[in-house]
Every structure is written in C-alpha cells, then in structure tokens.
C-alpha cells in the first residue's frame, strides 16, 4: 500500500514508471524479436548444414549399397569403414546409424547396436521420410543432439535411411551467446535510458521545488521582495512569467488599495454630509449664545463685571464650536493607514459625540454598557472611527421615530474584544441578510445612502483580522457584533 501511495503521490515516479515501463517493454519486444529471429536462423542454418553433410554422407552409402547388391563385397564392412572415415573428417558427429528398409540397423558408429531392430515409433516413421529431416533433442547418452535423417533412396527405390547425430551444444552456445549479447544491450540501453530519464525528471522536479520555495517566499506586502534566480531553461521561462505575474499582482494590489481608500473616503464624506445638520446645530447654538452675549455687552459696555461674565460665556461658546469643528475635521481628515493603540470605548464616545444631534433629533436613547477593563487594540484609529460611525449611523437610520440603541464592549478570554451595537429599529429582512455587506447594496431611498457603509465596515474588520456577524428580527431588532484581536495585526 505504501508503494502505491508513494507512486500516486509522486509525479516523478509515475512518469519514470510509465515511460520507463514503455521503454523496457519496447526494448524487450525488440530484443525478443531479434532473439527469436536469430535463434530460428541459427537453428535453421545448423539444420541445413546437418542435412547437407548427411546428404553428402548418404551418396557413397547409397552407391555402396547398390554395388553390394551385385558384387561380393561385404557391404557392412564398407559402410562401417565409411562411417569411421566420415567421423574422423567431420567434426561434431556423435553417432551415425544406417538402417535398412526393414528398420534394422546395418551399420552404426556403435557396433554393439548392429542388427538391432528400431522399435521407436517416431524413428520408424521418420526413417520412411522421402526427404532429409532434422530434430533436436536432449539425449541421456549423447547430450544435446541435432539428429538428421536422410533417405537412402533413388526415386521410388529405397534401401533404408541414414541417421546422423550432430553435437547440438555449439548451436546452443551460439544461441546462449546471442542471448547474453542481447541481454547486455537491452539492460544497458533500458537502464541508461531510465537512468537519464530519472535524472532529467529529478532535475525538473527539483527546479519546480525551487520555484515553489521561491514562490512561498514572495511577499506582496513588500515591494522589495527578492526576485527569483534567473535561469535559461523552461523553468527560467516559468520564473520570468511568474515574476511578471507577481508584478501585476502587486500593481493590482496597489490599485485595489487606492480604490479602497477612495471608497472609504467617499463613504466618510457621505457620512459627514449626513452629519452636517447636527454640526450646524452644534455650531449655531453657541453662536446664538455669543450673539446674545455680544448684544448685552454692547448694551452696557461699561459694566465691566457683566462684560467679563459674558466674555467668559463667549469664550465657552467659541471653545464648543472649536471642539465641534475639530471633531469633524478629525473625522474627515484623509490619513494614511497607521496602526497604533486605539481605545475602542473612547472612539465610541467620539463617534457618539458627532452623532449627538441626530440621536437627539430622533429621540433615540443610547444605552452604553462599556467594559472598562478592555485594553487598547492595535488598529488604525481613523478606520475604527469610520467602522463605528457606519454601524451606529446604520442603527440610527433603522429607527424611524424614537428607539433604543444598546452598545456593548466586552473582552473575551481569547484576547479579543467584542463590540455589539443593537437597535430596535425596522430590522433586516432575512433575504437581505446575506447581501448587506455587498458593495452598493442599499434599501434606502436614493440620496439617503451610498450602499457602501456596511461593505466598507466589512473590509475594515477583515483588514484588522476580525470578524463581523449580524442577526436581525424584522420589525424588532438588529444586532451587529464585531470581534477584533487585541494584538497587533501584521
């Protein structure tokens, strides 16, 4: 199982196994084809040689048999003499047997077999063959033998047959040598091909590994990330294109950040616009007070004590206006992102201060239940204010005529803080719950909202490593719950 797993999990092994297997099988088929062909040719050549020799042997044998019929010479002696001479002059003959047409041995290299009757069925059959024939077999006495039988026959007249047993070991040796040669060639070619293949694939895989390691090191946050080592091969081509892709990603990231920043600012400006009436009211009230003080001072300018009191009131009113304007400017200022310790409770008070007029205008009661024990979190203070502004504004907008907004802050055991903003406004229909964080999604009338507030809030929470949840009962209440880590966000 581990081998199968190893193969399945390694592209290198799969390629080597498949291509190596195909090469091995092909080489074996080619080698086997050559082996079979050459083996057949060697055997055929040996058989033809044997039959030629046997035919040459048979001619004087035949003449001796013919002459023996009409002369007084002892044919048997002549044949034995011929057999002996032939064996002396032709190498590799293990035995020679001459049988008559009654399958009785009339001459043999082993004289003890003289006059024996052949009883073996196959031998009897082949002794009647009309043409030379050969067979190869392993014999207990003679070892491997190539036996050739040649008929002693002229046309239809037959005197018998001659069997010559040739030593077949040289034939086997030739085939064995051929096998060893092909084995060595096949082993060398297959082994070296697979070895080279394995080396090349290993090199490619190790280049890919290098690429993966280099890719892992890439940091899109840093514009100064080290470039991958240039190469001239296909991996280099891949690296070059990867570098181009990386550049495009960085560029896209910058564009995205710019766009995000612009959206945040636009949404901030939009919320400022919605605060304008409140701000005007906050400024107007002290101005009326100042005008009243000025009027009384002018009416009795000599009354130094009264003038001093009014001047104090005027100064107080100017300070109030200055405070309001300062808050507004502080909220509206477009600053680059910076992480610093932020007191969420304080940020909530600041935002509520900016929304004071609208809250009172709608007769909304703010119930604050803030945990004094929560630590400052590492965050962008402007984005935190924007996040809280959007959520509280969303709650204010959800309440049509008076209501309650309850705000909780809480420190959790896992070093996080939870900010909960709950209103008893109109609520959010269930089908809209999944869409409210989508950009430009709004149920408000045209001009009342951009549809970006909650989307921007979602982005801010995400960028700070936090999460946001919403639950709502239409017509009863809506609660946004934000969880933020207290440690510094990378």
């Amino acid at each position, binding site marked *: 199982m581990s081998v199968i797993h190893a193969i399945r999990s390694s592209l290198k092994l799969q390629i*080597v196994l498949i291509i*190596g297997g195909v090469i*091995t099988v092909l080489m*074996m088929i080619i080698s*086997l084809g050559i*082996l079979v062909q050459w*083996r057949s040719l060697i*055997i055929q050549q040996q058989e033809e040689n044997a039959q030629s020799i046997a035919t040459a042997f048979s001619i004087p044998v*035949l*003449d001796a048999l*013919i*002459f023996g*019929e*009409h002369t007084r010479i002892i044919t048997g002696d002549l044949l034995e003499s011929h057999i002996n001479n032939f064996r002396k002059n032709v190498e590799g003959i293990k035995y020679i047997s001459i049988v008559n*047409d009654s399958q009785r041995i009339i001459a043999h290299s082993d004289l003890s077999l003289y006059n024996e009757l052949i009883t073996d069925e*196959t031998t009897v*059959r*082949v002794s*009647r*063959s*009309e*043409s030379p*024939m*050969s*067979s*190869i*077999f*392993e014999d207990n006495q003679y070892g*491997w033998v190539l036996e050739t*039988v040649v008929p002693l*026959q*002229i*046309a*239809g*007249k*037959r005197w018998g047959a001659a069997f010559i047993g040739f030593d*077949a070991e040289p*034939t*086997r040796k030739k*085939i*064995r040598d051929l*096998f060893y040669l092909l*084995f060595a060639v096949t*082993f060398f070619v*297959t*082994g070296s091909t*697979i070895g080279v293949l*394995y080396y090349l694939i290993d090199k490619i895989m190790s280049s890919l590994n290098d690429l993966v390691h280099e890719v892992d090191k890439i940091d899109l946050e840093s514009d100064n990330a080290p470039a991958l080592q240039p190469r001239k091969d296909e991996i280099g081509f891949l690296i070059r294109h990867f570098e181009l892709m990386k550049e495009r990603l960085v560029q896209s990231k910058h564009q995205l950040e710019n766009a995000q920043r612009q959206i945040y600012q636009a949404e901030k400006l939009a919320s400022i616009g919605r605060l304008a009436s409140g701000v005007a009211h906050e400024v107007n009230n002290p101005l009326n007070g100042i005008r009243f003080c000025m009027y009384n001072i002018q009416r009795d300018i000599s009354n130094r004590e009264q003038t001093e009191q009014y001047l104090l009131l005027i100064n107080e009113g100017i300070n109030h206006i200055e405070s309001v304007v300062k808050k507004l400017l502080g909220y509206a200022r477009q600053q680059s992102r910076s992480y610093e310790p932020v007191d969420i409770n304080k940020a909530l008070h600041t935002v509520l201060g900016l929304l004071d007029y609208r809250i009172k205008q709608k007769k909304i009661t703010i119930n604050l239940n803030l945990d004094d024990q929560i630590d400052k979190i590492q965050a962008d203070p402007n984005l935190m204010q924007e996040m809280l502004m959007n959520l509280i504004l969303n709650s204010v907008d959800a309440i049509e005529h008076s209501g309650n907004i309850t705000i909780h802050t809480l420190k959790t055991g896992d070093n996080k803080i939870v900010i909960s903003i709950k209103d008893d406004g109109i609520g959010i229909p269930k089908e809209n719950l999944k869409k409210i964080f989508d950009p430009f999604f709004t149920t408000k009338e045209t001009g009342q909202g951009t549809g970006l507030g909650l989307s921007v809030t979602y982005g801010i929470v995400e960028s700070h490593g936090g999460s946001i949840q919403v639950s709502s009962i239409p017509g009863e209440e809506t609660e946004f719950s934000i969880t933020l880590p207290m440690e510094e966000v990378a």
Partner: protein
Amino acid sequence: MKLHIPSAMTGYLMKIRNNIIYGLIFILLFLTISIIFYKTTVNIAQPYGDFTERESMYYAPVIDTVYFGVISRYPSNVIYRGYQPIMDYLTKNTDYHFELLLSDSYDETVNQLVSGEAHAAFLGSYIYVQAHDLHGIICILKPLNENQEPFFRSVLITHPRTGIKSIKDLSGKRLALPSQQSFSGNWLPISLLDKNDISIDDLGAVQFFPFHQSVVYEVLRGNFDAGAVKDRVAQEYSDRGIDVFAYSDPIPGSPIVVPRDYDEAIVKAIMNALLAIDPADPEYSALIRDWDPEFAHGFVPAHNEDYNTIRDILRQFGENR
C-alpha cells in the same frame, strides 16, 4: 555522543536510498523476466516436422511385381538414377509393381529374360539382334531421340590435346571402347575404320571397358586418345572438354524387349503407359526430367525389322573380315 545529521543531509541520504531501491527493483524484475526467457531460449528441442511417408505401394507392394532387366551399359548407381523413375512411372500408371533387375553383363540380362526371371528388359540394339536370333526375344518399344526420331548415333570422341580431327588421324592412337556386346561401342567404329582405310592393327592400342562412362573417363584422363560411345553419353559429358569428331549413321534406338513367352497383359500395360508419354506436354516433361536422357523423349512401337540395318552392317562387316 549522538551524531547530528542536518535535515537536508537526511533528505539527500533518503533520496539515495530510494534511488538504490528503485534500481534494485528494476534489476530484479529485469533478471526475473530474463531468466524466464533464457530457459525458453536455450531449450532448442524441436521434434521432427510433418513429412511425407513413402507411398505404400513402394514400401510394401501387394500387387504383382514385374521385374525389368537392364543391361550393364552403365554403373549400377547410374542405372538406378536414370531408370528407377521409369519404374516408378510404370508402377503408378499400371496395375503392376515394377522393379529393376540389374545385371553384371549384357548376356546376364538376356539370360534373365530367357529364364523368366525378368518380365521385360532394356537391351542394346546390337544384343537385341543377337538375342532375337538366338532366343526369340521380342522388341516392343524403342525410344525417340530429342528430334523425335527413333534413332541414336554412335560417336567418336577425343580430347583437344590429341589433335585428332578425323578418323584418319586415328592411326597409331589408343582407342577405348565400351562393351564388346554393344553395337555403338564395338562393331560400328571398327567398320568405320575399314571405310577409312585404317586397319585395327594400325591403332596403337584398343581396350574394352564395361561402361560407356568408363570410355569417357579414360579419354579425359589421357589414358586413351579416342573412344566410341553413344551420342547420349557424349552429350552428357560435353561440358567436360571432349570433342566429337565422327558420327555413325542413325541406328534404331535401344529397344525395350520381352521374352518369347511374354505376358500379354504386362506388355500391354507397359506399352500403354510408355506410349502415352508426350514430352511436349508440361505434365510429362516435368515427370520425365529425371529419366535417363535416352528415354526422356518418348517411345514408339518397335518391330524386329527395324533392326535389319544392324543386321546389314554386321553382315557386311563379317564379309569384310
């Protein structure tokens, strides 16, 4: 002390170990397959293939055997090679099994006919005349030559080194001749010598040999300056460097004969089979390719009168002598 191996080194060693394992697996598989193939390859045993056994009629004849005599004009092995195919043809095309009956001399063949040992025989033209006159032997067929004529010729041969161009040049030369009982090898050349005003005493030497081939070999060896053989034999050795410098008149071909008390059925069977041969027919031309050239052009019926030419020559020769 514990040896600390860096993780990169461990990975490298693991890789080497894996590579060795893969290599060993490859070698093991390769060897296993190779051993299987090796055993099959070196086992070269193979039985005798399919073959044709001799037909039963040759191997164990169960029908009447006709023995066919042949005069010893050629060595026995030559006779078997040239005449046995004719026996095979007759066996195949008649209801009899034919076997050659060789002899050591011309007379022995005649005796075999007379004694009934032979049912038919190939005789020479000269000995036929004698056998007919003495024993009533009857000729039934005679062979055609390559021009489809029922004749043959005797020829005088020599080797170019002798410088013999004509019969007149034979004076003082050594002459080799075949059997004294053969027409072509004996009487005819001598009668030719008479016609050319050369007596046998003018010759350096005259010797008889049992076979026509022996005459050719003696001339080729240089033991004799000239010799007389049948044209068919001279033709057979034409590429061995012999020159033919004289031809006899056409002589009726060597007949196939039967004894006086012949078996009509056998004669009829022989004649029907042999007269059916048409050398122009591809079927027969392939069949008779291995026959003795003297009989490879077909046969015609023979009659005793056809051989009167020989009788005339003999009579003339006898008168001259």
